[in-house]
């Protein structure tokens, strides 16, 4: 049995506390009026401008400026109204920012738990012989799923009741034909994309996933003391059923919870794209937790070959993710249809560094690092690459959500890092506590002998 080291518990709690402070700080510093926005923008720009002016102040330029300011004066009226609208817009973006940061971080860790559950179900359904020694690690990680589900459902509820305005399409004015803000495209989608149905779907998906997680864990524990393979057979059957349910619901979930941030835009492979990111993050976390437990002297049956196999999956799914990322990007880039291409125009113009930086982190780095067969067995190497992959996929989720909610007013600052730290602490606490609840070896699994002797 694994016992939770006090140091780890303290480490997790410190992360949660610091993270919570960051989240609160993010909410407190968000502006509440356009006046505050103006002040913030003046603070940000003021210094830079003043310096530039001092340096460049020549007579010629002074002359130029006087000319331009004259012409400005003529347009003053139009500009002011426009400015006010702009500040209003920035205000909404900045008010969305702490919520978005919270949502992204909570979704990121949720997706790790869900991806692990899917990977776990695949192992059962495929009757894999190599992985049963890792089953308890995977069950530990999926223990975060119920916690994450509650948090994400609460966040969705808060959006549905207009506490925040993350989901633009939830505004009832957009589907009201009488209103000035009537949006024909969103109204056309409202049979599917309406708040009650959205929440019902979210509830059914979360309930289904958590049900499988609960049942499979229960049977896995029962299997330890069973006389025959009855519980294994049941788990096999439920895993297959879950996978069918999962692949449909995961796809719809990705439309609902991510793609609907840009309600005009659509991509038919979005579900797969989110799935690929989910799987690679989940497998990376499985590998990292396994290595941590192994370094503490547990999991004596896990050998180099198991780590090697996990690293192969990290490598493979990184390439799979890139394939989908590029497939989505290239078709839209090539066809250049305005309603589709705006998605990438925003990201390339306003999010250039995170957008292309993430491709380096999620593709170039893992490919070069994990290509060599020997490196896949070096634990610290796998952990190091894993950290890069996880950072890359956090930025991937960031890129999927932030452009729609905060536009160009993004920054990875206190709200983002605070949220990330909070959910990281919570994740570590829940996962490692769950690992103490059962023996780390599913000892009566019919494939456990094969798994112990697994040799690449």
């Amino acid at each position, binding site marked *: 049995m694994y016992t939770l080291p006090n140091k780890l518990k303290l480490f997790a709690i410190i992360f949660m506390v610091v993270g919570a402070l960051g989240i609160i700080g993010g909410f407190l510093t968000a502006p509440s009026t356009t006046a505050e926005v103006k002040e913030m923008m003046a603070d940000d720009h003021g210094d830079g401008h003043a310096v530039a002016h001092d340096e460049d102040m020549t007579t010629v330029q002074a002359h130029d400026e006087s000319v331009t300011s004259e012409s400005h004066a003529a347009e003053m009226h139009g500009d002011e109204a426009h400015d006010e609208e702009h500040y209003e817009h920035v205000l909404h973006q900045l008010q969305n920012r702490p919520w978005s940061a919270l949502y992204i971080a909570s979704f990121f860790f949720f997706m790790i738990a869900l991806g692990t559950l899917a990977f776990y179900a695949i192992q059962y359904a495929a009757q894999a012989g190599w992985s049963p020694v890792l089953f308890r690690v995977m069950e530990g990680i999926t223990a975060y799923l119920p916690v994450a589900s509650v948090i994400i459902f609460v966040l969705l509820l808060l959006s549905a009741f207009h506490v925040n305005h993350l989901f633009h399409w939830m505004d009832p004015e957009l589907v009201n034909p009488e209103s000035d803000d009537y949006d024909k495209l969103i109204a056309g989608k409202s049979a599917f994309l309406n708040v009650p149905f959205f929440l019902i779907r979210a509830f059914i998906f979360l309930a289904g996933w958590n049900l499988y997680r609960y049942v499979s864990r229960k049977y896995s524990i029962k299997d330890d003391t069973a006389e025959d393979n009855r519980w294994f057979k049941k788990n096999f059957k439920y895993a297959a059923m879950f996978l069918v349910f999962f692949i449909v619901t995961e796809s719809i979930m990705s439309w609902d919870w991510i793609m609907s941030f840009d309600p005009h835009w659509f991509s038919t492979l979005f579900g797969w794209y989110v799935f690929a990111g989910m799987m690679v993050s989940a497998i990376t976390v499985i590998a990292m937790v396994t290595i941590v437990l192994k370094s503490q002297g547990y999991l004596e049956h896990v050998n180099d070959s198991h780590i090697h196999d996990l690293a192969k999956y990290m490598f493979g799914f990184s390439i799979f993710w890139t394939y989908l990322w*590029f497939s989505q*990007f*290239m078709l839209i*880039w*090539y*066809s*250049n249809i305005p309603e589709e291409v705006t998605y990438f125009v925003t990201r390339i113009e306003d999010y250039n560094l995170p957008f292309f930086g993430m491709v380096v982190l999620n593709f170039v780095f893992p490919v070069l690092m994990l*290509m060599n*067969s020997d490196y896949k067995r070096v634990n610290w190497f796998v952990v190091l690459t894993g950290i890069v992959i996880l950072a890359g996929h956090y930025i991937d989720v960031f890129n999927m959500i932030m452009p729609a909610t905060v536009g160009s007013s993004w920054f990875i600052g206190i709200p983002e890092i605070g949220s990330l730290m909070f959910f990281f602490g919570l994740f570590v606490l829940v996962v490692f506590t769950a690992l103490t609840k059962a023996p780390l070896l599913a000892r009566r699994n019919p494939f456990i002998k094969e798994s112990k002797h697994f*040799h690449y």
Partner: protein
Amino acid sequence: MASKVIHAIYNDDDILLQAVKQVREAHYHIDEVYTPFPVHGLEKAMGLADTRIAITSFMYGLVGLAVAITMMNFIMIEDWPQDIGGKPSFSYIQNMPAFVPIMFEMTVFFAAHLMVITFYMRSKLWPFKKAENPDVRTTDDHFLMVVDAGTHDISKVSKFLSDTGALEISLIENDEDH
């Protein structure tokens, strides 16, 4: 130079694998093992060095990538620029996404084909090559281990090999030049 080798025939891959380990422990030299199918772990048991074909494959892939870039740059940018889908081809980098599938395919094509050719050359295989396996049964269901008799006592080695589970043991005197 005349050399003497012993051919030991087995009919089970597990027994063969065990025998290979025992023969090596007894410090006899195994020249070669002929099997009807790849036996997992045999190369490690025989103490063969790891294959370097992965490294050649990586280099061939890079060659393929370079060829694809040069080729597309010549065809689509330098030689005959066209306006496709409102994207005039005057710059490689700006049209790069359209070339990625070709870059990928050429990388795979070069890596795969050149790797296979390298493998054939390294294994000394080419069309109309005469088969080297000393016993046709190794293409069906038997395994053959070639042990260098060297200066060892033949009867002792034969005894040892039959103890490892060999079904047939024969001494081959090889007069050909190597």
